[in-house]
């Protein structure tokens, strides 16, 4: 009959879950503030090259994206495994780029057009032939400010 004998008849009190919503809301707000909405579904596989001398793009709303890469496996039976260009949500030919740039310009305010940037998201193993064609088309469309999208290299 010691003092310290445990009273086994009592059940363990349940852990209170009252703070669970708070924790989850905190996570939710964290993710809401650090991420941005996905703009288009990628239909090509892109593994960006690494670089050290990179700058951040300031205004995301002024950036238009050109994706180049091999179509994802689900699309390969239609489009094959050659690198393709993706503009917005569909595959495009090189010659459609000036129209795409023009459409992007129409969507922006006139005063913002000179600050527009074209971001080239190109897979590391793509051949330069297709990239050069894109560059020529961009020059023709006078969209001269470009950004070779790349990952920050670990030093």
């Amino acid at each position, binding site marked *: 009959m010691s003092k310290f004998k445990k009273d086994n008849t009592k059940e363990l009190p349940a852990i209170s879950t009252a703070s669970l919503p708070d924790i989850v809301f905190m996570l939710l707000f964290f*993710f809401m503030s650090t*991420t*941005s909405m996905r703009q288009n579904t990628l239909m090509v596989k892109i593994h960006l090259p690494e670089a050290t*001398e990179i700058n951040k793009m300031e205004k995301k709303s002024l950036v238009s994206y050109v994706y180049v890469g091999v179509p994802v496996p689900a699309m390969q039976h239609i489009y094959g495994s050659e690198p393709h260009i993706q503009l917005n949500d569909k595959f495009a030919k090189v010659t459609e780029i000036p129209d795409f740039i023009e459409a992007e310009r129409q969507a922006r305010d006139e005063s913002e057009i000179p600050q527009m940037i074209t971001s080239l998201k190109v897979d590391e193993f*793509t051949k*330069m032939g297709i990239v050069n064609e894109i*560059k020529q088309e961009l020059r023709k469309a*006078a969209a001269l400010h*470009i950004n070779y*999208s790349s990952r920050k290299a670990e030093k």
Partner: protein
Amino acid sequence: MPRKMPEIPSASLADIAFLLLIFFLVTTTMDQDKGLERRLPQWVPEDQMDQDAPPIKERNIFVVLIDKENRLMVEGEICRVEDLKEKAKLFLTNPLDLPNMPETEVREFDIVGNYKVISKSAVISLRNDVGTTYGAYIQVQNELVAAINELRQELAMDKFGKSYVNLSTDEQKIIQDIYPQKISEAEPKRIGGAK
């Protein structure tokens, strides 16, 4: 005596929050847009191309070629990517006034004063094959930009005692004048044998 209001059950609040959390996790991306910024040259229609433009002197061009096997040739010599930055830095400063390096001249700048720079016509010419992979191309571009950035950084520390990124816009402008980012991306040719 008023009746006590029954409490709203909050047990499902966690479920709702989880649902929202998962929705945002799926629809958003974390990746930030970063990359090498570059300006393309103006488009010149072929019939308007200036044939009579004086050619740039051989010594003022730093030729970098990449072939379809991603091998590198710099100024007529085979070179490793690791050595490219040092070579580019030498070209951009020509500290010993070598005859095969670009012409130098002393120009006057604001704040900095007289400073020896290479000729304004000096340019880095980067040319690649159709079969070069994009990754190798970016790696070379990166090294060239790194060379220029390092020179700018050294000059900023030397003249202003501050890191280049911490300088004011005007001061950055002076340094950009001294070391401009002149990289010409020529139209591709087939280099290194037939396909």
